[in-house]
């Protein structure tokens, strides 16, 4: 059971208040009209899916309903940090 810190509520809450939303920091293509199919496919579907440190999006669904980022190890399940959208992680693989 995760105990997750919401950087907006500034509180630790139980996992069930949150929904995971997958890999974080996936930037929408700058010039969508001129993307190749390959670039669109990469953006939409291809993921790092690391075994280890993962930067991921969560939403505080049953709380403030804001999206934020979490750095978490996908093998040990240790959570390193939560940080707001637009901020950069301090822990990386």
């Amino acid at each position, binding site marked *: 059971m995760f105990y997750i810190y919401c950087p907006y509520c500034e509180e630790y809450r139980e996992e069930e208040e949150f929904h995971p939303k997958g890999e974080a920091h996936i930037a929408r293509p700058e010039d969508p009209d001129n993307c190749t199919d390959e670039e669109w496919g990469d953006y939409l579907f291809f993921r790092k899916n690391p075994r280890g440190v993962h930067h991921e999006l969560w939403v505080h669904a049953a709380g403030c309903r804001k999206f934020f980022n979490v750095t978490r190890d*996908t093998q040990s399940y240790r959570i390193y940090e939560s940080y707001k959208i637009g901020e950069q992680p301090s822990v990386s693989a």
Partner: protein
Amino acid sequence: MQKYSGFGLLKHALSHHENWQRVWRNPKPKPRYDVIIVGGGGHGLATAYYLASVHGITNVAVLEKGYLGGGNTGRNTTIVRSNYLWDESAHLYEHALKLWEGLSQELNYNVMFSQRGVLNLGHTLQDMRDIQRRVSANRLNGIDSEVLDTQQVQELVPVMDCSPNARYPILGSSWQPRAGVARHDAVAWGYARAADALGVDMLQQCEVTDLLVEDGTVTGVETRQHGTIKAGKVGCVVAGNSGVLAKMAGFRLPIESHPLQALVSEPIKPVLDTVVMSNQVHGYISQSDKGDLVIGAGIDGYNGYGQRGSYPTIEHTVQAIVEMFPIFSRVRMNRQWGGIVDTCPDACPIISATPVENLFFNCGWGTGGFKATPGSGHVFAETLARGEASELAKPFSMFRFHDGALIDEHGAAGVAH
């Protein structure tokens, strides 16, 4: 290979069952193989078996970091069916189902394939429309499939709450009589034994730590225990670890790894002689030959490689089962475990060439690949032997996520199974 038979059993009884041959050898790795299969789950083992038996390619090794069948193969709830919506997947799963039907004979190993039928329940009008559509599509593809009403469902499963008072009343179901369950370990062991007899090396406790690529072509693998092993072709069949292997070769996959869990109860007397699945309340259940209820859950939504599931998911699953079967409310659960499933955005597998020459991947089976084990191995062996996708495998290229030809099976694969 020592052939198993009733007579053999009697004969070995005379020597107190002390002289049975080893089921497979424990060979030393050769420096080079024509084909290396990474991953000794059901799919990898089936691939090796068909490479040897159908294509005569016997200089093959299966490299498994743990023990054979110790991944999702030995952790799944063993539901086998082929009632998928789209032609591409229906053909693939039906190909597998046909192979299941003769598998125990072919392998001379009892995989305990039991065609006890599978119900996919509908609880809303939209469920029923989807079921009708899927059943019609199945029938056009020559797959046995029927729509049942509430009354017929109740007759098949007397202990299920089919009353209109249920919180999510059962309005009907799809029914595939040829579907059922099989013994998961036996499938791995049966394929391993048959492949070994044809000369394939099973290398257990042999973890691949790197894929060797020269000028865009794979030339072998680096292993933790046995150093470098060269190969003509490499086939990766590592389920939840596919992303890890792809990274070794320098590309990404449209796959994310999630924990999926299951649980079994204490053994009880026979009470459920078919398989019940519900997308809507999200649970699925059957009863094993030992008598335990085998219950499957949904995936945990986050990426994870720890082979365990979360507590909230157990709670939701058990709620769903008790909702459908109030009679089971006081059955005690014995064991719970998790596997790491390789989910793909369109809920269909990837059987494919890759950006690296002579390197092939068979993955993305996610929550529902056990049923496909024989078919997956069969088409992947052909793909490896020919060096290009077999007819049935063609639609499942990883490059469909670039050209957009996705095969959306979220409906038929809706509940993890």
